[in-house]
């Protein structure tokens, strides 16, 4: 009989991931079913156009009023609803007065979660020429000027900024790139508080130019520790309280480290490089914990860690979205998405189980929610009949979801959301 070996992929826990690709399309992949759900693409938003290639994306996936910001190659930043894909606001002509030159792509984008208020959000963007800008944007549907207060500064004088990350506490941000050493900036005062120093020349006196391709903070508590990956396949751990040179630095395979993601425990990181190797490394010791084997043949452009489930998603140039189990490093599923993928984010407020919640509770929830635009109800059709009676289905879903999410966590108390 034909000699084929097919490894059955175990399914994933229920989750929802949004992937962004080189043609500007946003695809939503959901996996339903508590054990063994196979992820499927449920929605596809956007028009395919290579000038709209997505360069960076950020999601604020709170229970009510989540927003998604997407930075495209033609200079526009779109703020939309991650549940329906409707664009709230689209900012173009991004730049400080003198317009937006052709080669000044956006390198990093971040939505501030802590200081969100109804109807507006603040974004940090950074372009490759080093123009970083902190601006608040109104997302109310009514006519209003797009740019609220904006504060911009130049991150680097020369070189190209390739990676930008904001710390969990949202007070600090780090930037690094080609010819740009990793810098740590204080966002409230817009000052650079720390810059890295390149490691000493090696024994052969060979000087490798600085070229950071990815960076991330290690934990949400301590802004002083972060990890950066370089073009010469080195992963460097920095501690600003200790020294300016990297504390630990180790080599990983032979191609540039294209993406780094941190785990919740504060010391494990996941690195993905240009030839599709994904591995988890312990930063305390510098030891490689293990590689994620799953026939990934293209460069890994982005890794995302799910906030609740022990799942990471990786996407890249081989057009597959792969979901991995963190502990066993097993491939949970691989979904083919047809284009070169550039970013992936998780929408953590997702549950596909229907809650048998009493109606009285829902009635209380409705007045407290934010008024939203009409949302697509197509994806809801999978949900069973008890939802049919409600008009404002989406809000109920989200309130139920947040409640359900509490109940799903085994050891946590289910507080009032």
């Amino acid at each position, binding site marked *: 009989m034909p*000699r084929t070996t097919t*490894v059955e992929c175990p399914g994933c826990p229920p989750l929802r991931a949004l992937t962004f690709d080189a043609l500007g399309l946003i695809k939503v992949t959901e996996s339903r079913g508590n054990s063994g759900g196979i992820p499927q693409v449920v929605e596809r938003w956007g028009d*395919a156009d290579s000038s709209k290639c997505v360069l960076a994306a950020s999601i604020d996936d709170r229970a009510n009023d989540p927003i998604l910001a997407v930075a495209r190659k033609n200079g526009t930043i779109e703020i939309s609803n991650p549940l329906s894909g409707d664009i709230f606001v689209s900012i173009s002509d991004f730049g400080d007065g003198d317009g937006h030159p052709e080669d000044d792509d956006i390198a990093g984008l971040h939505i501030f979660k802590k200081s969100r208020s109804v109807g507006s959000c603040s974004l940090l963007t950074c372009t490759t020429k080093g123009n970083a800008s902190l601006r608040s944007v109104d997302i109310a549907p009514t006519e209003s000027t797009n740019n609220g207060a904006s504060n911009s500064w130049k991150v680097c004088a020369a070189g190209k900024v390739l990676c930008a990350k904001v710390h969990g506490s949202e007070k600090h941000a780090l930037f690094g790139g080609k010819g740009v050493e990793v810098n740590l900036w204080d966002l409230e005062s817009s000052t650079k508080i720390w810059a890295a120093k390149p490691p000493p020349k090696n024994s052969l006196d060979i000087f490798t130019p600085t070229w950071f391709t990815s960076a991330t903070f290690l934990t949400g508590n301590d802004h002083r520790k972060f990890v950066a990956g370089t073009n010469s396949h080195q992963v460097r751990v920095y501690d600003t309280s200790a020294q300016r040179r990297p504390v630990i630095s180790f080599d990983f395979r032979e191609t*540039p480290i294209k993406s780094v993601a941190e785990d919740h425990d504060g010391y494990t990181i996941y690195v993905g490089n240009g030839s*599709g190797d994904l591995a988890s490394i312990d930063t305390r010791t510098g030891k490689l914990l293990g590689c994620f084997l799953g026939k990934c*043949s293209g*460069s890994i452009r982005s890794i995302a860690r799910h906030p609740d489930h022990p799942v990471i998603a990786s996407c890249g140039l081989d057009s597959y979205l792969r979901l991995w189990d963190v502990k066993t490093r097993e491939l949970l599923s691989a979904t083919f998405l*047809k284009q070169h993928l550039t970013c992936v984010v998780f929408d953590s407020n997702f549950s596909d189980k229907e809650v048998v919640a009493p109606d009285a509770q829902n009635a209380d929830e409705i007045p407290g929610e934010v008024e939203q635009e009409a949302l697509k109800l197509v994806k809801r059709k999978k949900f069973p009949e008890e939802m049919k009676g409600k008009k404002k289905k989406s809000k109920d879903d989200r309130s139920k979801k947040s409640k359900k999410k509490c109940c799903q966590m085994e050891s946590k108390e289910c507080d009032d959301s």
Partner: protein
Amino acid sequence: MGAKRKKEDAPEMAEDADIDDGGCRDRRNRQKVEKKEEFRPSMIKNKEKRSAAHAKLKHQKKLEKRKTKKAREAADKQALELGEEPPQRSVPRTIENTREADETVCKPDDAELFVANDADEFSSILRRERAPKILITTCRFHSTRGPAFISELLTVIPNAHYYKRGTYDLKKIVEYATKEDFTTLIVVHTSRREPDALLVTSLPSGPTAHFKLSKLVLRKEIKNHGNPTGHVPELVLNNFTTRLGHRVGRMIQSLFPQNPDFRGRRVVTFHNQRDYIFFRHHRYIFETKESKQQDPKSKKGKDAEDKSTGQQVIARLQECGPRFVLKLKSLQHGTFDTRGGEYEWVHKPEMDTSRRRFFL
């Protein structure tokens, strides 16, 4: 014989022992069926007995095959005599037939594919906005057959130019070529004095494909070879089905001008089979010849007469030019960069888990 019997008994005894409660009949029957299917000559430990059993099995299979063939031929002949259709032949199982279902195969109605094609690096050449201009060079080492191969490549690919490598860095070469409006750079890499690999880079920023080159046969080594003319050849690209294959196919297509000269009767074929791309270069000619029909009885009357004196048009091929086989090793996203390279597809040994899985 004794050995065979022991083997047959042993699994049965083991399975009997495993049954705790008096097994149901189904289980017994199933075991018996399983037992029959399980037996293979490779289970016999004694080499002489095993080889005897294997030879016997092969002989039996050969006899069966001969029998079925004879029966089939007899049935065919009978059917023809009776004037009926010969019975249908069953389709043999091949590796291409049993290829694993691949989700990356391009579907004909995929709008995203068309948009991706319009947006990719080769579209400007394929839409005839730019004319292909190829720069061929070698690696730094000399080779015995390299220059002959390159001179043949220069005749196959129109508008190709050869420059000596010297000691230039590939990145510098890419810059220079972009400045001079070349569309593709081909580097013939040599190993052990034989051309070994082909690096095809689309300029200015295009993907780089690294192919392994093997089974190179030069023109002078082909018997009765033909000499190619200067007409623009027709291109035949076979079996590039998956997305990756489609991309590689478009890359190869962008090497040749998009206006083939049919009067030149020259065809270049890249045939992909099981991830190996076979390159052939032929000149063809259409000829009519008298056909000799042997079964006029099937259709009596005018038709039969026409057939018996009818003309059939056939195409004859004369091979010219080199013959070689390529295998894609990696596809890099930008121009060739060993250190900073980002790969769209790289072959990894862990991907070869199945003999029925191909990537192109």
